[in-house]
C-alpha cells in the first residue's frame, strides 16, 4: 500500500504559491473542500485562478477568498449566488471565464485522462465558441474545448482511506471525481479517514492513484444554501 496521508490541512497545502491555478470541487456549497478553502484564506495566497463550478456565497466557500481579493480569475459555469462576485466581475477587478457546466466537467476529466482537447456541441453559435475551432461530425456542429491545466486539485469526499481511495456521498460527488488527478497534485479532504482495508474495493468511486495527499478535515459546517422542506401532514 502506498500511503497518501498527511497530518493536517497545513501539510496538505504545502507548495501552494501566489499566481497558481487551483481546481476546487463542489456544486454550490455542496461537497466543497471547506478546510482547504479556510487554509487558502489563512495563508492569504494571492492572484490565484480558481476553476470551480460556482463561487460560493458572500460569507462561505470561495466567497471567503473573493472578499479578500485573493482571486485573479474565476473559471465557472454559474455565479448567481454571490453579489460580491458579480460586483468584482462587472467592475473588471476580477477576470471571469464562464464555461458551460458539462464542458467544465469534461475539461477536468480530459485533463485527468490525458486527452488534450475534445469536441462538444455546447455553446456552438454562441459567444462561448468565439475564436474556437469548430467542426462538423455527422451533420452537426461542434466546438473544440481544451483540457484544463491546474497546479492543484482540491476535492472533498465523504470517506477515504490511507491509500487515497475515495467514496462520495449523495450529490456532494458532483465535480469532485472529475477533478481527481486533473491537477498536478490532488489533495483530498475527507469527513472520515480510515486505515487501508476498511473500505470495500467494490464501493470505491475514485482509486488512490489519482490522489497525492489525503487528510481528515477538522470540522465540517456543510452549510445549506436553499433550505426547502415540506410540512408533515
Amino acid at each position, binding site marked *: 500500500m502506498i500511503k497518501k496521508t498527511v497530518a493536517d490541512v497545513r501539510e496538505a497545502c504545502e507548495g501552494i504559491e501566489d499566481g497558481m491555478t487551483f481546481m476546487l470541487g463542489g456544486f454550490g456549497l455542496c461537497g466543497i473542500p471547506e478546510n482547504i478553502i479556510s487554509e487558502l484564506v489563512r495563508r492569504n495566497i494571492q492572484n490565484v485562478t480558481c476553476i470551480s463550478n460556482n463561487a460560493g456565497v458572500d460569507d462561505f466557500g470561495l466567497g471567503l477568498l473573493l472578499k479578500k481579493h485573493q482571486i485573479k480569475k474565476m473559471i465557472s459555469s454559474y455565479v448567481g449566488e454571490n453579489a460580491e462576485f458579480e460586483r468584482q466581475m462587472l467592475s473588471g477587478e476580477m477576470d471571469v471565464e464562464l464555461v*458551460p457546466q*458539462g464542458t467544465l*466537467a469534461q475539461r477536468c476529466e480530459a485533463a485527468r485522462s490525458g486527452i488534450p482537447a475534445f469536441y462538444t456541441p455546447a455553446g456552438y453559435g454562441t459567444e462561448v465558441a468565439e475564436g474556437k475551432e469548430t467542426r462538423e461530425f455527422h451533420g452537426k456542429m461542434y466546438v473544440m474545448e481544451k483540457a484544463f491545466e491546474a497546479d492543484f486539485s482540491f476535492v472533498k469526499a465523504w470517506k477515504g482511506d490511507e491509500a487515497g481511495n475515495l467514496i462520495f456521498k449523495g*450529490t456532494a460527488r458532483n465535480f469532485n471525481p472529475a477533478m481527481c488527478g486533473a491537477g498536478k497534485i490532488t489533495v483530498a479532504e475527507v469527513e472520515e479517514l480510515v486505515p487501508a482495508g476498511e473500505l470495500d474495493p467494490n464501493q470505491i468511486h475514485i482509486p488512490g492513484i489519482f490522489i497525492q495527499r489525503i487528510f481528515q478535515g477538522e470540522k465540517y459546517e456543510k452549510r445549506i444554501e436553499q*433550505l426547502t422542506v*415540506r410540512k408533515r401532514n
Partner: protein
Amino acid sequence: MALSKEQIAQRIAKEVKDGYYVNLGIGIPTLVANFVRDDISVEFQSENGILGMGPFPFEGEEDPDLINAGKQTITALPGASFFDSAMSFGMIRGQHVDLTILGAMEVSQNGDIANWKIPGKMVKGMGGAMDLVASAENIIVAMMHTNREGESKLLKECSLPLTGVKCVKKIVSNLAVLEIIDGKFHLLERAPGVSVEEIRKATEGDLVVKGDIIEMKF
C-alpha cells in the same frame, strides 16, 4: 385569462410521457414535477448528479449532501442513483435524457434561445443550459410571452447573447402553446379567453395560424 405559472407547468406536464427521463430547469420548469400524472413512470434528472429526484424533505430531514441544481434540499426516490458531473453531462450530451424543460428570456422564430446573460447588467452564467439545449432532441421552453413593458419575447431574432441556436421546438407561454416549424412560430393552442389576435399582437416573430385554435382547459 393568461395562464399562471402553475398553469404553464400544468400544461407542460401533459408532454411528459411514460418512461421519460426528464431534466427540469430552475423556475417554472421545477413546478412541472407537481403536475405529472401519477399513473406513469417518470424519473427526474438534476444535472448536479441525481436521477430519481424526489420532493423536498420533511422538516428536520434535510441533508446538506442532497440538493438539486437550484441548490435546494431534496430527497431521493426508490431506484435513484447518484453520479458525478462528467457522467451527468454525458447523459445529457449523449441524448439519454428524453425531455428538457427550461425557461427563456427570448426565443427566435428559427429556434434560437437566449436565457443566460444581459450584457452589463445580469451575468449569472449559463450553468448547464448550453449543454442541455445543444444536445436535447426534445426541448420545451416555459416562458412569459412578453416582458414587463409588454414587449414580445418571441422574436424574429434574439437581441440577447444566445444560449443555443436552432434548438427550441416547442414553447408554452402564459398566452399560448406554439411549435417552431421551418423558421416560424405555429400557434397550436391558446390560453382560456385569450384571442388569436391578442397572441398575434404579443408575438413579434412570424406567427402561423392554421384552422381553429383550441382553447386550453384546466
